[in-house]
């Protein structure tokens, strides 16, 4: 399998680390040297030739090949079985509605949240339970990190270069989670977003840091969701008032109350859609009175439609916690879902 990328000779593993750090080719953590054998193994596993065009970054017209993705995936620690998830996620990120350039260059400092659905999650050892949003398992960590290294090395998304984040957040190291389909009675996220039943899929979202909440003093679905909606309203007051894709992560202890009451994800979305609203006048309560002007009575919804809320079942078994994950900046970037290992443009014979 002929690879096109330039080769570099280094003395040993430690020399490789210093070489990569000195070139600005890592995120600050050590990397796995992308040898021909390791890169080829990823490409073979995914059934992709090195020159396969995964997509083109729309703003800068920069081509993304499977070989370059594989190199960065190996560097991030991916095994070949992880690579199809990386390819699918980057494919989704290159879709125009995701607005990759804006989402990765913005001062707002968002990260790419990846949600994995379908049988591949268990096949590659993803764990949707304990510590679901942070280093829950090897696969989740390396897949998320691979996307960041791809952005750094293929798109110049380095701090102070293309990446103009004022603060960023820890999800920019890795932000990948599987949905706990086995532990949930709800439809998987990807299926709700129109993907075939049982398909392995990824959903990407330009996402802020998770905002953790807690309410373990009720079993009433409406009251639980009032806590989620309140956290969304706080984000609208303190960060951005504009509607976009919000995600909520619902762990098992809270999920059980929804299942007992017969609430589907659609019911959850419909309730949050109605409750996650603020008046522009509320900005005056938090120091933003200068931009209220004569529009104080205007009502703003966090969601343009109930379907814009991504409801994700994930988390450890004990504790009435949950999380709201806000969008980067309103509707500028849209969440995108694609199937893993499927060509969405190909005609099935």
């Amino acid at each position, binding site marked *: 399998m002929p690879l096109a990328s330039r080769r570099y000779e280094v003395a040993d593993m430690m020399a490789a680390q210093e070489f990569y750090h000195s070139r600005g080719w890592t995120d600050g953590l050590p990397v796995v040297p992308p040898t021909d054998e390791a890169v080829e193994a990823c490409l073979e596993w995914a059934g992709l030739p090195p020159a396969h065009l995964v997509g083109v970054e729309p703003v800068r017209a920069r081509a993304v090949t499977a070989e370059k993705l594989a190199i960065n995936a190996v560097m991030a620690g991916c095994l070949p079985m992880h690579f199809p998830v990386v390819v699918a996620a980057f494919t989704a990120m290159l879709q125009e509605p995701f607005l990759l350039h804006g989402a990765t260059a913005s001062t707002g400092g968002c990260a790419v949240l990846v949600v994995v659905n379908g049988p591949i999650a268990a096949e590659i050892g993803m764990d949707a339970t304990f510590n679901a949003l942070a280093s829950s398992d090897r696969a989740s960590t390396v897949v998320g990190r691979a996307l960041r290294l791809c952005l750094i090395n293929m798109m*110049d998304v380095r701090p*102070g270069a*293309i990446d*103009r984040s004022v603060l960023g957040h820890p999800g920019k190291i890795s932000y990948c989670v599987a949905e706990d389909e086995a532990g949930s009675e709800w439809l998987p996220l990807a299926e709700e977003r129109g993907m075939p039943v049982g398909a392995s899929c990824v959903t990407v979202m330009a996402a802020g840091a998770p905002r953790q909440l807690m309410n373990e003093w009720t079993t009433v679905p409406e009251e639980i969701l009032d806590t989620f909606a309140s956290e969304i309203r706080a984000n609208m007051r303190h960060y951005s008032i504009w509607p976009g894709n919000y995600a909520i992560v619902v762990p098992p202890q809270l999920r059980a109350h929804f299942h007992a009451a017969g609430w589907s994800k659609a019911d959850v979305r419909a309730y949050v859609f109605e409750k996650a609203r603020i008046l522009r006048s509320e900005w005056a309560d938090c120091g933003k009175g200068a931009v209220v002007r004569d529009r104080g009575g205007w009502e703003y919804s966090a969601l343009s439609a109930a379907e814009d809320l991504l409801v994700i079942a994930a988390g450890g078994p004990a504790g009435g916690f949950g999380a709201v994950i806000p969008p980067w900046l309103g509707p500028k970037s849209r969440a995108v879902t694609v199937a893993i290992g499927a060509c969405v443009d190909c005609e099935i014979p």
Partner: protein
Amino acid sequence: MPSAGIMTETFVSAAELMARVLGAEDYPFAVIEHPISSADQAALAARAERAAADCARLLLGADG
């Protein structure tokens, strides 16, 4: 199409980088003081006045 870009001082390096990666190194643009969002009307007017003159030069050439 004739065009003139305007950047705040803080984004000059970003604009230069984007110009370079898009194959338009040394693409000229007007520069104004940062930030915009918290500037009052008088400060905005001053920035606009400066930007207007610079944009006219960018659009019409050095001799106007």
